[in-house]
């Protein structure tokens, strides 16, 4: 680097609402724009629900205007028993165009985790030895709960339930289960052990999010795993200008995914939230569309 850029170091920018937060709020409102649904305890039932949204947003959330791609994938495999051409094609397009921009800027459950992490509670850094292998868990969730078991697990009824939705998905409990049960006494009366399990999973993930940055995205989300597989090919990229970088380390300390920003920016674990870009005092980090620079690393090793 470059003494010349050292002279141009800016102090941290002061903003009320970051670009990321504005986009996250707008996206959450857009994907869940059927406000009347929350009041009535009913879900939206028009044609837009044939379209998958690029984020983890339960289609049984009363506000949801589109379909959850992870739910739709399990249904095609487990209930209709065919190759999911439509959902997979849609997901691949999202992966190729947006990649994990969907996670950093658009996903409502990402926003929930970001907001919870602002609570004034002690913060925890997961030790490297646990963090690195645990990041592979989300690929196992994708392969097993979303793809293989729904496709191949035999069932008496001929319909394998959407296992990720049923046992793990916190977005379904938070966006669908809780508002619907609050609004509908009939649903409340049939809630049993499964609901208690899902509520406990949700509570554990929300508590973890208050202590650790984006735990669900790092370790469990199958949609994040799918997009991570496409990060190499995604049109949206984050770029680092090594000549401008003064190695101050501010980007690495703010990164919610604990990425070694100066070495592995835009890898599979990078969610393109842009926080490194905002904090960088020399404007060395930018967003770009298009080519991947050669030599970027892939895989969960890209985290610190």
């Amino acid at each position, binding site marked *: 680097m470059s003494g010349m850029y050292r002279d141009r170091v800016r102090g941290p920018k002061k903003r009320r609402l970051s670009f990321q937060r504005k986009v996250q709020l707008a996206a959450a409102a857009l994907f869940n724009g059927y406000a009347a649904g929350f009041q009535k305890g009913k879900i939206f039932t028009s044609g837009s629900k044939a379209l998958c949204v690029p984020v983890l947003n*339960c289609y049984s959330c009363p506000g949801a205007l589109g379909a959850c791609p992870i739910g739709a994938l399990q249904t095609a495999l487990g209930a209709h028993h065919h190759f999911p051409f439509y959902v997979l094609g849609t997901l691949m397009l999202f992966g190729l165009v947006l990649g994990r921009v969907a996670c950093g800027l658009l996903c409502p459950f990402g926003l929930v985790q970001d907001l919870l992490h602002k609570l004034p509670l002690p913060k925890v850094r997961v030790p490297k030895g646990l963090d690195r292998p645990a990041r592979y868990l989300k690929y196992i969730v994708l392969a097993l709960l979303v793809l293989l078991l729904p496709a191949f697990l035999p069932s008496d009824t001929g319909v394998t339930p959407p296992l990720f939705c049923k046992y793990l998905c916190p977005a379904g409990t938070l966006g669908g289960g809780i508002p619907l049960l609050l609004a509908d006494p009939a649903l409340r009366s049939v809630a049993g052990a499964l609901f208690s399990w899902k509520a406990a999973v949700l509570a554990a993930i929300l508590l973890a999010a208050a202590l650790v940055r984006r735990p669900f995205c790092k370790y469990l989300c199958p949609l994040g795993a799918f997009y991570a597989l496409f990060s190499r090919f995604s049109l949206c990229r984050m770029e680092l200008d090594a000549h401008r970088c003064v190695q101050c380390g501010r980007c690495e300390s703010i990164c919610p995914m604990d990425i070694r920003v100066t070495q592995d920016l835009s890898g599979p674990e990078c969610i393109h939230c842009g926080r490194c870009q905002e904090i960088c005092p020399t404007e060395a980090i930018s967003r770009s569309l298009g*080519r991947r620079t*050669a030599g970027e690393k892939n895989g969960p090793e890209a985290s610190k």
Partner: protein
Amino acid sequence: MRSALRTRDSSLLRLGLLVLALVFLGVGLARGEQQEVLAKAVRICLECIGIG
């Protein structure tokens, strides 16, 4: 040189994946799979909300 080749390979793969995604999407639409997605999404999914 090597890295230029790698970048070119990446671009080719990206293009290949894009074509594949569009083919999948086209086949899915032709088979009417969007109707299945709609049918699932307009009913409350009991598994999703922790009831069934």
